[in-house]
């Protein structure tokens, strides 16, 4: 008993230390964003001035990031869920090869993907300068996460038999897909959506190359602010980023929880 208690406290202490190591800089940075003068520390007083300046100067980047991540989510849902369905249904050499290929954009550095895009489409003026150029990069980068996440759930349930029993009850393809397949991979879709939005919001490497002065996303603007403006403004910017992304993460996490046991558990008794 004693020994376990010691072990418990040691583990707890270690965990807290690691957390502190990660969290303290973030907290400090966010504090800096509301400090009048960072050099003089907190005694100089608190202010919302820097946040106001961020809002005035970088509002567009925030809207663009939200916009891109939502459109990116829509595109990955429309492309990724059916793709995962096909991959789960047809287990053959080709689909396995595609599954392997899906890892590529993750394994290849974002910079390389971005360069490839620029080399290929850089000449297409209107496209190159529009936000859809960044969107294409983000979709390439995040699609595999959506597919894999949905595929994992679809592979865990006995999809074939579920669909067969639905069709024996008279359900055609559309009814099966929307009433049986989609509700049963809800958990995977939510997890995938969470990933896609978060990755798209925070993506920097690729976006840095793909952006134009008129299509700056939030992380690109953040780098800009750190490089060219007062530290306080950069920090205020970080604060805004957190305020935006944390509720989003929490909301999606909460959504994916209640029906978990219902979707995750596959039917028992296999042949």
């Amino acid at each position: 008993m004693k020994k376990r208690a010691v072990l418990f406290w040691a583990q707890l202490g270690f965990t807290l230390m690691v957390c502190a190591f990660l969290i303290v800089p973030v907290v400090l940075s966010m504090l800096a964003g509301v400090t009048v003068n960072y050099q003089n520390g907190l005694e100089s007083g608190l202010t919302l001035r820097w946040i106001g300046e961020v809002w005035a100067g970088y509002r567009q980047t925030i809207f663009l990031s939200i916009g891109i991540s939502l459109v990116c989510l829509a595109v990955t849902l429309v492309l990724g869920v059916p793709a995962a369905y096909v991959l789960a249904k047809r287990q053959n050499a080709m689909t396995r090869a595609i599954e392997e290929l899906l890892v590529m954009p993750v394994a290849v550095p974002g910079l390389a993907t971005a360069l490839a895009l620029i080399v290929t489409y850089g000449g297409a003026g209107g496209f190159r300068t529009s936000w859809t150029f960044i969107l294409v990069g983000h979709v390439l980068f995040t699609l595999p996460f959506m597919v894999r996440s949905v595929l994992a759930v679809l592979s865990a349930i006995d999809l074939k038999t579920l669909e067969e029993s639905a069709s024996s009850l008279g359900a055609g393809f559309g009814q099966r897909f929307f009433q049986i397949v989609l509700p049963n991979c809800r958990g995977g879709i939510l997890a995938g959506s969470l990933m896609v939005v978060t990755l798209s919001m925070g993506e920097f490497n690729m976006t840095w190359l793909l952006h134009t002065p008129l299509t700056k996303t939030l992380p690109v603007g953040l780098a800009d602010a750190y490089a060219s403006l007062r530290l306080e403004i950069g920090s205020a910017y970080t604060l805004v980023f957190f305020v935006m992304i944390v509720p989003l993460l929490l909301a999606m996490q909460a959504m994916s929880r209640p029906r978990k046991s219902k979707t995750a558990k596959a039917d028992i008794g296999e042949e």
Partner: protein
Amino acid sequence: MMTDPVQPLAIALSRCGKTFADGTRALEPLDLEIKAGETVVFLGPSGCGKTTTLRIIAGLEDPDAGGRVLFDGVDVTAQPIEQRNVGMVFQSYALFPNMTVAENIGYGLRVRRAKKPAIAARVDEMLGMMRIEPLADRRIDQLSGGQRQRVALARALAVRPRALLLDEPLTALDAKLRDALRLEIDELLRRLGITAIYVTHDQAEAMALGDRIAVMDHGKMAQIGPPREIYRRPATRFVADFIGTMNRISGVARGGVFVTDAGAVPWLEAPPGTTEALFRPEDVTVVDEGQAHLKGSVVAAFFLGDRTRLFVKVDANKPLVVETDARRDYAHGETVGLRIDPRGLMAL
């Protein structure tokens, strides 16, 4: 309780074979007629093609070119399963995890765009029929195996299918529950008068449920007939060995007697040229040596409570299996006399 006015379906297969994409020959081209309202059991060892045949009837697999599936004489080979209106019950139940019990049962009606009150009424009726009313709002993962099987049956029957196809519906359950549900299914099928095909590799289940049993072996129909006929007059060696216990003894039929090394058995109807006699354990009685047809020595004895099963060696073949209700012990090596009821003798 209300029973459905079902119009039972006659099913026929004509030259239905199945070769899978990987070249596996699962089914030799076979013909099969199932009468309206009949319960036919497909029985056979694993891999003999029972499921494949059932799936061809359901419309989940296409037969090889030339094969045809007929429902009431109408060719439905090209019809997909969702248009055939046959109920299916799977070994793994295949209940929809995203729906409650009631939603599962009502799904077939919802797909047919039935009105909400009509669905609710039918679901209640099915819940009542399967005696699972208290489970209506449960999720699937909150059910036991037996409850799941009841829901699966209710779901398949809710749409008033023209036939019910069951693929080893009880295999995943424990022995006691299996017996109870078997009785229930038997009673249900009879009451509904629905055409049913029941796949199993359990011969007790087959005997109990089938109006006829189709014994399958390596993608072929070895024999089709009522349980009694399959048991009493097996058409092939495979059927004789697969169903129940069969004893065999070698000898020659001569002048109304079958003469073996261990003795002679009267057998007037022995087909000419018979060199092997087959008989079931229940056609043998253990008797005094004076009245015995055959003599042999006990190689093993198992006390079963109400009777004792003896393994008696009479010749170089496998020992004969006989049963006796004598209240005594049998010693290993003891000589016993056996008397065989001539009506139980078979030749193949």
